[in-house]
C-alpha cells in the first residue's frame, strides 16, 4: 500500500477487518509485529519515543467521537496543542484558534464546553484542533459515524476543502460508500486483514470481485456471510436441552 501525498485516500472495508488497527500502526499507537510501515520516511517499527512525538506534531488525527478534553472549553481545546508545544503570545494563539474555528464554522461556539455540543459539532471542533498545528498528514477515524445528513455533508466538504487549501495528505477510514465516493481520490478496500481492491471510487464500482461487489452494493450475503459461523440450525433446534 502506498498513500499518495496531497490526496485524500480512503481505507474502507467491513467491520472488523483491521482498518482501525492499520490507523494505529500508521500513527505509532501500536507497533507492527512484522512488515514495515514508513511515514514521512520514518520506519514506524523502530522509531524511538522522541522521534515518534516529533513526527506526531506533523500529524493531526480526528477521533471517532472527537475525543475533546471535557474539562476545557472549545477555545481551550483548540488552543491546547499550541499552548503545549509553542511559546506563542496569548494574542497570537487567540487569532490562530479563531481562524481555525472559523474554518469549521464554529467561531461562535468558542466559549461553550464540550458537553454542550452535538456530535457533529464536537467532531468539527476536534477537526479544528487537529489542524491548529498545521499538520502535513490528517487522519480521520470513521468521521461519518452517527451523524445526521447535514452534519455528514459538512464534514465531507470540510475534508475535501481542508485537504486542497492546506495541501494536506488525508487518510480517511470509513465504511460509508456514498460519502467516500464523493471525497476520496483513491480507495483501498480491506477484507480479512488484506487489501482486496484499490483504485478510484469509480473503478471500484465495476471491480471484478465478489467481495467488492458485496461491499460497494451493500448486499446482505456474499463472501462476508450473513450468518455468523454456527452448527447446523435444525440439528441445534432439535437437540435435547440441558434440562430435559
Amino acid at each position, binding site marked *: 500500500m502506498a498513500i499518495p501525498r496531497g490526496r485524500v485516500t480512503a481505507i474502507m472495508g467491513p467491520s472488523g477487518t483491521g482498518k482501525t488497527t492499520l490507523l494505529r500502526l500508521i*500513527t505509532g*499507537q501500536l507497533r507492527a509485529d512484522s512488515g514495515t510501515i514508513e511515514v514521512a520516511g520514518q520506519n514506524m517499527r523502530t522509531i524511538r519515543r522522541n522521534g515518534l*512525538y516529533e513526527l506526531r506534531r506533523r500529524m493531526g*488525527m480526528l*477521533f471517532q*467521537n472527537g*475525543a475533546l*478534553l471535557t474539562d476545557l472549553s472549545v477555545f481551550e481545546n483548540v488552543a491546547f*496543542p499550541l499552548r*503545549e508545544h509553542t511559546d506563542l503570545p496569548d494574542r497570537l494563539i487567540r487569532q490562530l484558534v479563531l481562524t481555525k474555528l472559523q474554518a469549521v464554522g464554529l467561531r461562535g461556539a468558542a466559549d461553550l464546553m464540550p458537553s454542550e455540543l452535538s456530535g457533529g459539532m464536537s467532531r468539527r471542533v476536534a477537526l479544528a484542533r487537529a489542524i491548529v498545528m498545521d499538520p502535513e498528514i490528517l487522519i480521520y477515524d470513521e468521521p461519518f459515524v452517527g451523524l445526521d445528513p447535514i452534519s455528514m455533508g459538512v464534514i465531507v466538504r470540510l475534508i475535501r476543502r481542508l485537504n486542497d487549501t492546506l495541501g494536506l495528505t488525508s487518510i480517511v477510514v470509513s465504511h460509508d460508500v456514498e460519502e467516500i465516493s464523493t471525497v476520496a481520490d483513491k480507495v483501498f478496500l480491506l477484507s480479512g486483514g488484506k487489501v482486496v481492491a484499490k483504485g478510484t471510487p469509480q473503478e471500484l464500482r465495476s471491480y471484478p470481485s465478489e467481495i467488492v461487489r458485496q461491499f460497494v452494493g451493500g448486499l446482505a450475503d456474499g463472501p462476508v456471510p450473513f450468518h455468523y459461523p454456527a452448527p447446523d440450525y435444525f440439528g441445534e433446534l432439535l437437540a435435547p436441552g440441558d434440562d430435559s
Partner: protein
Amino acid sequence: MKVLKELWESLTDSLEELGSVVRFLLRMIVLIPASVLRFELIAAQIWNAGALSLVIIMLSGLFVGMVLGLQGFQLLQRFGSEEALGVAAAIGLVKELGPVVTALLFAGRAGTALASELGLMRATDQLSAMEMMAVDPIKHVVVPRFLGGVIAMPLLAAIFSVIGIYGAQLIGVQIMGVDSGSFWSQMRAGVSLSDIDEGIVKSAIFGVACSLIAVYEGYYATPTAAGVGRATTRTVVTSAVVVLFLDYLLTAAFL
C-alpha cells in the same frame, strides 16, 4: 495438584501486577521534575483532592474525636486517671486514627474520583488524543493528579487530628467534666515531637499509596462502563487493605 497450580498462577499474576505498578511509579517519578514546572496543574489537583475532601474529613474527625473522648473517659475513669484523656486522645489521633482514617476517607472520596475520571478519559479517547497531539498523558494528566494527592494527604490528616482533639475535648472537658487545665497540660507534656513525626510520615506514605493506586487503576481501566466501575471499586478496596497493612509495618518500624 490443581489447587496448587491455581495458587501458583494467582501468585505470579499478583507479582506481575505489582511489577507493573512499580514500573508505572518509576515512570511518574522520572516525569515529576518536568511536571513541577507546570505548578498550576498540580495546584488544581490539590484543590480537587484536598479542598473538596475537607468537609468529609472535618466532619469525620469531629465524630471520631468525640467517640474517643467518650470511650477514653469511660476507660480512664475506672483507674481514676481521667486527666490523661487529653494525652490519650491526642496520641491516638496523631499517630494512628488521623493518618489511617484520613487515608480511608481519601480513598473513598478522592481516589474514586481520580480513578473514574482517568478511566472515562481513557474510554472517550481523550488520553489517546493527547498522545496523538504529542503530549504525554502521564506527564500532563497523571503526574499532577498523583502529586496533588500526595501533597493533600498529610494536610488533611493534620486537620483531621486537630478537629479530632477538639472533639475529644468537647466531650471530655465540656460534658464529662475533666479538668481543662490538666487535659491540655498532660497533652502538651505527653505528646512528643517524634509522635507528630510518626503521623506525618505515615500520612505521607499513605498519600503516595492511595494516589498511586487510584491513578494506576484509572489509567489502565478497561475502557467500558463496567471496566471503569471495576477500577473504582478496586481503588477503594486495594487502598483500604494496603493502608491498613502499611500502617502495621510503619507502627512496628517506629517502635
